């Protein structure tokens, strides 16, 4: 139960229009107060359990997403918030968009909507909690996602 009572989230905005971001932040504010469930928006991935990703992934932020994902200690859960993060949303065939977050890292739960209401995001966090618990029990580790090919710029 311990994980389920203290989910610390790290919010990663990869390619989002801010709509989802402000709703994620709104979850933490008094009217929704996610801290009731022990949710803390912690700054550093090293202390986070749930990675809340908003926005589709683009070619520049893919590195950020992978690095942050790798830096979260196991067990960890990725929550994709919004149409963009889930499937690429309205931007799914823009030239600079790779697609939903699951194209890059494994996603455990999705929150639909553009943008999703804070209630929906809270639902997502609650859903993530049970997944977190399962992962802890099953000792399921997240795989390390490597940067590949030209995602690593040759240094100038």
């Amino acid at each position, binding site marked *: 139960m311990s994980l389920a009572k203290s989910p610390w989230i790290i919010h990663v905005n990869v390619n989002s229009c801010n709509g989802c971001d402000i709703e994620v932040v709104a979850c933490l504010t008094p009217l929704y107060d996610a801290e009731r469930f022990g949710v803390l928006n912690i700054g550093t991935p090293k202390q986070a359990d749930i990675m809340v990703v908003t926005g589709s992934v683009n070619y520049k932020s893919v590195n950020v997403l992978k690095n942050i994902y790798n830096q979260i200690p196991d067990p960890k859960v990725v929550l994709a918030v919004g149409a963009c993060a889930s499937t690429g949303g309205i931007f799914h065939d823009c030239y600079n968009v790779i697609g939903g977050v699951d194209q890059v890292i494994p996603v455990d739960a999705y929150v639909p909507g553009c943008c999703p209401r804070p209630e929906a995001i809270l639902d997502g966090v609650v859903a993530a909690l049970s997944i977190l618990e399962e992962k802890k029990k099953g000792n399921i580790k997240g795989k390390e996602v490597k*940067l590949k090919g030209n995602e690593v710029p040759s*240094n100038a």
Partner: protein
Amino acid sequence: MIENTVMLLIIVPLLFSLLFVALPKSLYKILAWALFILGAALSVNLVLDGTGVVQIGEPNFAMLENVVLILEVLVILFILAVSAKYKNWPTLGLGIISAAIFAYTFSNVPKVEGASFNIDQFSQVMILIVNIIGTAIILFATGYMDQYEEHRHLNRQKTFYFTMSFFLAAMNGLVMADTLGWLFLFWELTTLCSFVLISYNMDEEGINNGFRALALNLVGGIALSIGIILLATNNVSTLSGIGTYAGTNAAALAAVALPVALLCVGGFAKSAQMPFQSWLLGAMVAPTPVSALLHSSTMVNAGVFLVVKLVPAYAGTSLGTAIAVYGSFTFVMCSALALSQRNAKRVLAYSTIANLGLIIASAGIGTPLAVAAAIMLILFHAISKALLFLCTGEIEHTIGSRDIEDMSGLIKKAPLLTTLAALGMVSMLLPPFGVLLTKWVSMEAASSNPVVIVFLILGSALTTVYYAKWLGTILSSSMDKNAVPHKKLETYFPLSLLGLAIVVTSIFVFPIYDYFVKPQVDILLKAAPAISGLAGEFTTEIGAFTYIVIFVVLALAILIYLATKNMFTPRMSSYYMCGENNLERDRLMFRNGLCSYEKSSVSNIYLQNTFGESKLTTLGYAISIILIAIALLGGIGL
């Protein structure tokens, strides 16, 4: 027995200095080892021999007195010659004054019959420092100087080793001599050694700084010699005699006040207290072993040694209070000055001055507890500082810089060296180590004087800050692992020895206190502090320092760490760089706006604006000169 040891202590280093000149470079290592072993053996032997006074009577005395006379003339001639050669007029002027005073002494002051060496516990402590730490430093130098000279295209090692071991002899003489005239000779000889070694590089900077050291020490020497002359008018010609004389009655106490104050000023100059501190900072251009030997653990201690020895002549008087305030002022001022320094050797230099100031302050307070603190601090400080200087030297050879900022990540490059350096720093500012213990004792002792204690409090907070910065920097793991330094025995043996000494002396602080310090304080003040060392506690009348518990807890922490290290599946990861890094590359790199990787770095806070050197130095000069003037005027009896 004891006579022989005393003589050997002076003669053996002299012999070695000649050997260093005579024998080729390739044998230096062996010589240094031999010197180390002999020095250690002799000093331990002296301790085993116990205390006592060695009288030198006729016929040896006449012969030796002549030697002394010749040497003094040579010293003065050397000063005059060298300052004339380099056209350093202030030094020349001071040399002429010294010569005049010497001539005056020679013709007017009554001659003494016989001379004496006084071996008390304090001298024993000093001898141990000089002959164990000092020879260890020379040993270290054999692993150090080659690379040093290579960098600077020098070839003067003969001079170097000659002077170093000659210095040991002079220093041994200095701490044992009781006759003021002889003491003065040894005093000037150490000054000369210091001059030679500071200008070792023979470049402009070195020579200028050497002359600054020479000049300022000559000022001190002049004060010292005037003091001696004044004392001679009271028929006091030995160091121990001053206390005895002052103890006879109130009038005698008042009579020696001015000469004692002058002797103290001499001590201040030697210990580079404000306003003389600039010579010690300049001395940092010398090779690091020199800084370690002369400018932190031994020669500068001669100043405070003298001041502490004079305690009976001013304890409890207003002169004592003035000295205490002066010392604590130097302590806080130099600690503040160290705050804005990023050159490791300058930090150490300021820290040295500050700690000497603390010793002087403790001596000035003059209670048994305080004097005990002063003597112990001399010992602990010498060990820690020698280690720190040597480590800095070795660090410089490892990374090519003595800038604290460049040392970040050192733990990855040279773990053992870094651990030793860290131990040195920790021992300077944290319990349960000796330096802190003595700082604690002196704080408790000083709490009767509001000004001194406030200065000490501020100073100790500042000390924590500048060491913490450095400590954190060397322990931070940011540099990638490359260039592991070659470990040389003659480098790491002295370092480890000093490290070990820190731990051992700190653990056995009470026996050390009991054996060396307590009787000495008894001699000086005819009263010993009420300190007990039961149950691993160092208990004074107003507090207790539970050092053993802390050692135990520290060991516990290490144990817990080792036990839990692998309990929670450790996994190495990359740094948090806001997501813009890459594990495979340098772990501190991040991708910047131009899509290329760049290294992140962090420098410490140095507060140059608030604690800037020039601003504070000016302030320090002003206040310290005022304080010295007060002390002297108080001596005259105003």
